């Protein structure tokens, strides 16, 4: 038997409009820590989902222990000894530690669970992980994040996992807990268990990793790199740069007298972000760059009033907006295109025109009665201007592609003639061709005098589209300046804790 545990070759996974994985190769050996590196959207999460049987690949082969397998369900993966510990821990908070560890394969006799046996076994597993102090009878919801992670690991081991995928396990831990995590990982690998480790923190990869695979745009760009020897600049070079050149519209020189429209001062929310200040002038696009979880989306939602700021103020045209009041923001001319288009912005089963007019219904109503014809005419005009396809305003929004749905959201705020537009991941789920179109639209809006705040996980998008950028790391702004004066390497370096300096 070779020491190769897993070999994935040419994995392709397509979603409507997006090719999430486009030829991924990955091989993992017994007893190693294999690090997976890539920018947001490079396909790491999708790859894990394929590996754990949650998604089925459209092409490619998977070998486990030199045998060709097909992972059609999470059960298949579990049976082959593949387990995953997700960022959002998938534990049942109201069950006990032992119940969670053995969820789905409880020790039982005649259909009755054997609680004592489960508790004893759970205690052994926890002790093996160096956490004998966690009582198996404790409710999981009462444990710290680190404790819950240990329970997740115990669950993986209870299934005799040979391969454990850890998706940014250190994100929820403080440094002492990270040390303990590493100790546990070393203990696991010494027993021959392989770990696929995903992290954005390069110094962790140096510390714990054996080999590195780098993903970019859904494909493997390098595999089997030495985790300790490969220079950081080389890793960042592999992760950045794009084979697809997006066309960004040219920037316009801001008139010197362009008024400041949006002012944000010392905005804070505990555990999300602190001391954020920036100003956006009419016609300007300000981009927020940073990793998922760095507080970008939370800032937008707080500016919009969907979250209540703990401290700090937001002003539009010099007028103070009271914290936590969406209606006040909307009235002041602020619009938000939220991150989760489907769950936060759209009424999927409703017609296009209803989705467009939902924020300005008053304009089409007299005495509470809606004039549907006027609504449709206004929506028609906008969808034509934005080239929403298929044409027509009576289809349910559900039938539109991602890019066209995003245009519908933009049209909603255009109809209100808004002064400030907050765009959260405006091109998520939008296919490549439609992206430049969205970029063009956003720039055109700015040229018409709208102040725009843009959040995107894709550094290139922020740098290409925005006039100025604010780089975020763990809830703080670590750099603010013109977009032309900073490049992708520098931004990545900043958000990954300066490890490349």
């Amino acid at each position: 038997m070779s020491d190769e545990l897993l070999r994935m070759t040419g994995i392709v996974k397509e979603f409507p409009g997006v090719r999430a994985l486009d030829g991924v190769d990955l091989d993992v050996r017994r007893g190693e820590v294999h690090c997976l590196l890539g920018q947001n959207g490079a396909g790491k999460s999708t790859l894990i989902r394929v590996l754990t049987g949650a998604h089925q690949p459209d092409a490619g082969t998977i070998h486990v222990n030199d045998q060709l397998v097909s992972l059609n369900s999470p059960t298949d993966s579990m049976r082959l000894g593949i387990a995953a510990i997700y960022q959002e821990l998938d534990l049942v908070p109201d069950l006990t530690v032992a119940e969670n560890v053995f969820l789905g394969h409880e020790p039982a006799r005649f259909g009755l669970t054997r609680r004592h046996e489960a508790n004893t076994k759970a205690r052994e597993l926890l002790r093996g992980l160096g956490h004998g102090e966690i009582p198996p009878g404790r409710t999981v919801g009462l444990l710290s994040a680190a404790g819950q992670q240990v329970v997740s690991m115990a669950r993986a081991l209870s299934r005799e996992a040979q391969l454990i995928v850890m998706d940014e396990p250190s994100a929820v831990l403080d440094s002492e807990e990270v040390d303990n995590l590493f100790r546990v990982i070393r203990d696991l690998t010494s027993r021959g268990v392989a770990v696929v480790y995903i992290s954005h923190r390069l110094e962790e990869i140096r510390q714990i990793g054996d080999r590195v695979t780098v993903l970019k745009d859904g494909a493997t760009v390098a595999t089997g790199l030495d985790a300790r020897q490969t220079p950081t600049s080389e890793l960042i070079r592999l992760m950045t740069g794009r084979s697809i050149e997006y066309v960004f519209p040219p920037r316009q020189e801001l008139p010197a007298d362009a008024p400041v429209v949006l002012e944000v001062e010392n905005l804070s929310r505990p555990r999300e972000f602190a001391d954020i200040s920036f100003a956006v002038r009419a016609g300007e696009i300000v981009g927020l760059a940073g990793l998922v979880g760095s507080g970008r989306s939370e800032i937008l939602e707080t500016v919009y009033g969907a979250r209540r700021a703990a401290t700090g103020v937001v002003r539009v045209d010099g007028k103070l907006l009271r914290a936590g009041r969406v209606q006040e923001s909307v009235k002041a001319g602020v619009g938000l295109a939220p991150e989760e288009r489907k769950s936060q912005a759209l009424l999927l089963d409703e017609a296009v025109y209803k989705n467009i007019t939902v924020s300005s219904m008053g304009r089409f109503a007299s005495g509470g009665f809606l004039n549907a014809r006027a609504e449709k005419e206004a929506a028609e005009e906008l969808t034509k201007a934005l080239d929403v396809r298929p044409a027509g305003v009576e289809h349910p929004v559900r039938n539109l592609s991602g890019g066209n749905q995003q245009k519908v959201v933009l049209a909603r705020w255009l109809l209100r003639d808004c002064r400030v537009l907050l765009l959260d991941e405006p091109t998520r789920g939008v296919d490549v061709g439609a992206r430049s179109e969205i970029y063009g639209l956003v720039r055109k809006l700015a040229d018409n005098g709208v102040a725009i705040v843009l959040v995107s996980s894709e550094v290139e998008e922020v740098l290409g589209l925005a006039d100025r950028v604010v780089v975020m790391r763990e809830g703080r702004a670590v750099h603010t300046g013109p977009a032309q004066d900073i490049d992708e390497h520098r931004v990545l370096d900043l958000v990954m804790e300066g490890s490349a300096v």
Partner: protein
Amino acid sequence: MSEEVARPQATQDQPQDVPTPSGQAMIEVDPTETAPRNGRSGGDGGGGNVVVNLLKSGAGRNVGLVIALVLLCIVGVATAGDRFASTANVLTILRLAAVIGVVSIGMTFVITGGGIDLSVGAMVALASVWATTLATQQLATDYHWIFMVSTALLVGAACGLVNGLLIAYGKIVPFIATLAMLAGARGLAEILADRKTQIISVNSFVDFFGGSLIGIPVLVWMFVLVAAAGWVLLNRTTFGRRTFAVGGNAEAARLAGIKVQRHTVALYVLCGLCCGIAAVMLMARTTTGSATHGQLYELDAIAAVVIGGTLLSGGRGTIVGTVFGVLIFTTLNNVFTLNNLSISAQSVAKGLIIVIAVLLQQRLAARAP
């Protein structure tokens, strides 16, 4: 050891923003437009799709309900003959349908808005008792029966207001908040009535609401008016549009600037108001106010709303469907009663109808993209 596999990217080959309406266009009415798309989505043959599309369209769902109602009537005529098909019997059915019908209209709004109201029956009881206390009846005798009516409406609306405030601002789930109102309102009604049935002695009230207008009972007219007003409100006003938005996706509605909490309160007040109207109608029909009025109305109303095609999870609702749902259940009761079948048999049939209707609804919903 570190071999590098740099792959050229193939992503450029991706199609340029092809508009892909991913599923069958089920709401479109224009057959010329739907036809090519259905072909594209594959799956069913053309003939099957026509039927499915029809059933899924608003009118089509109602066609199903009409067929069910017609079938029931055929059974009624076949088993009970003239006793079923007489004008008097039809008016009886309509008069019985009217009270629960008005309640169901209110329930349609609450359910479309993503909620549920279990307290409708209790609110009817409380409103009927409060509007028939000696003091209120005295006022009505001295001045005008309008005092009884406005008392009932106010009591209903006030209960609805409490429901709405608890749900929207107290963040209590609708099921629990209205369950509490169910217990509380009926209990309060019993205390007020001292567990006695209160006879209405205001003749002008009984004469007006118990009477007929152009041969049709006033109660039926009231149901027609409430249903028509409900239809307009749900389908033609900003209030209705917001109801769909709040029920369909509350978060999206909030981020679009809709006052979701205030709207939720309004929906429950509206439902309470409908219960007040229903209480007036029930008082006229029975000439009493009683804490036992409106027993199990919550279940009848929810059943009628759901088989009418309103989505229990909110976001989709139909007044016409609800009216048919009410008529189907009332006719069913009537047919069973005329054939001397027991209440228990009726309940079994009712249960079956609910299950079949919801199963059908889910099948149709599952075909939607």
